[in-house]
């Protein structure tokens, strides 16, 4: 028998992983909803954040907090660059062609980033802050897991607040629902897309950096994160932000428990097959 305290500790790790996936999944959902571009580079953006923060804090020698903040800024700059160059070219086409073009261009970007980053960061890195373990009754919880959960919750909450409360957020949701309608009331979809894409990149960067404090990450993890984020986004309903967030947390918990009880291989197989089944049984909404 596994002790209850262990179960709870594993569960908290699962929630931390799930929040991380939720942040990436929401990024995919937002960008796809606004411009029909499925960002297959999102996991690599997250890893880019982790690696930049690691580089800035070790090789450059900044303190943890400035290194992390600067790392997020660098990911944001990458986001702006990609949006201005590659995505501008993708948005010139329409419909199914744009979807395909989006898939291939972001897949190519992911491979390109992976190819470049492997040369500079060949090993696996951790952004350990040396946070103490916290003991509640019998349960030992790593402080970094709590940090991941707290930061992710704040980021998700501010994202929702942004979309609900601000003019820009409302404009984004308008484009989400009806692009022509948005144009008619004077919202420029391209501008909104640019802002939201960069926002999604920054969120991914934050996710990568925060998750890096509790896990050891390498360049090869990037693509796997993309796949999980994609699953989260599709399982949660590719146009529903709340659904994506919930799906992310659930998936993280399930994946972590499955890993703990039945081992990594079987757990991943179950995960991927669940995604396949959900893809097949859910009602087809977007075509």
């Amino acid at each position, binding site marked *: 028998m596994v002790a209850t305290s262990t179960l709870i500790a594993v569960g908290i790790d699962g929630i931390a992983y799930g929040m991380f996936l939720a942040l990436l999944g929401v990024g995919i959902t937002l960008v796809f909803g606004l411009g029909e571009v499925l960002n297959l580079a999102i996991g690599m953006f997250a890893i880019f954040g982790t690696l930049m923060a690691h580089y800035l804090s070790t090789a450059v020698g900044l303190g943890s907090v400035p290194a992390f903040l600067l790392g997020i800024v660098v990911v944001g700059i990458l986001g702006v660059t990609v949006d201005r160059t*590659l995505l501008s070219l*993708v948005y010139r086409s329409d419909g199914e062609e744009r*979807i395909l073009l989006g898939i291939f261009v972001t897949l190519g970007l992911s*491979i390109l980033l992976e190819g470049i980053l492997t*040369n500079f960061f060949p090993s696996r890195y951790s952004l350990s802050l040396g946070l103490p373990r916290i003991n509640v009754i019998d349960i030992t919880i790593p402080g970094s897991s709590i940090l991941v959960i707290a930061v992710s919750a704040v980021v998700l909450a501010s994202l929702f607040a942004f979309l609900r409360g601000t003019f820009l957020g409302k404009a984004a949701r308008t484009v989400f629902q009806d692009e022509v309608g948005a144009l008619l009331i004077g919202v420029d979809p391209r501008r909104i897309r640019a802002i939201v894409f960069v926002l999604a990149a920054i969120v991914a960067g934050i996710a990568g950096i925060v998750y890096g404090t509790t896990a050891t990450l390498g360049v090869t993890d990037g693509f796997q994160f993309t796949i999980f984020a994609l699953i989260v986004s599709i399982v949660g309903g590719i146009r529903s932000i709340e659904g994506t967030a919930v799906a992310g947390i659930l998936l993280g918990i399930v994946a972590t428990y499955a890993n703990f009880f039945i081992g990594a291989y079987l757990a991943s197989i179950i995960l991927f097959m669940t995604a396949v089944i959900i893809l097949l049984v859910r009602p087809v909404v977007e075509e």
Partner: protein
Amino acid sequence: MTSLPLPRTDRAWTGVMAVVLAVAPLFVLESTTYLRLYNQFLIFALLAIGLNIAFGHTDQLFLFMGALAGGAAYVMAVLAQDVLGITPWLLIPVGMAASGALGALVSWVSAKRRLGVILISILTLNLQLALTEAYVGLRGITGGSTGYSFVGLGLDSIGSILGINRFAVLSYLLIVLVVLAQLVYVRLIGGKYGLAFEAIREDDLAAASIGIDVVRYKTVAGFLAAAIIGLGGIMMAEFQGTVLPGDYGFAAVDVMVLIMLIIGGIRTTFGPVVGAAVVFTIEEFLSPVGQWETAVFGALLIVLFLYFRQGLMPVLSDGVDRLRDRTASSSGATDGRS
């Protein structure tokens, strides 16, 4: 002004291709390195021919080519060595049938559920990841990540009789298979299937309304594509002498085959073979900067899709048409070959 007597039909051009493919290895019979490279090129040409049928002609973006290829290889090798103990030659069709059946099942379900190209790609990508995990995880059957040793089709004994390298024998076996696959393709696309595929691609609702069974045609395309991909996977096992999960991964197979098909020209008869040749040539030139190869291929994927979606074949066949029909009027000189 002379016009060159160049062939007009795809079948005649397939003959030309067969001759070119058969002559090329004669120059490198002594070099195992180049023969191995040539083998790999032919294996990937097979895979690309399969993807051209599924993705090119019926909009089913199969991103589980690696898993299909690996599955066929495992079925063939494990059945031959551990279960039945008979010659693997007899089990090549069984392996192809297994991957073909999986492809047909995916196509059938996707067509029934009316999944678009994006959902099919994600669905098959998930299958790819699940299956490769399974290949590694089912250690008792597949030997896990260190691979399943495959004794082979006995090509080295044929080679020693003829006094040539095992890889030279494999080259000629592969040439026969590529030409056969090419002939199947030409027949398929030139006949009623090609017309039906075209109609479905234009508008599946309109196609269905004039009596084209969309689900059936897509399923047939999925079966054929997956069977050809399975054959490629079996040949990969023969080439390596082992069935290695790493050879059938997403990056190693799917990404490369996709790039080849696009470079060569999607929905063209010779695009897959030309594309595979070009990519292996590029790879050979890149080998001095090996650690940058991934980055270069990523960049290539982006640039190709943004600026070169038509591929090389339309350019090449325009050139051929111009050489042949130099005296004819510039318009009306098309022979329907794209």
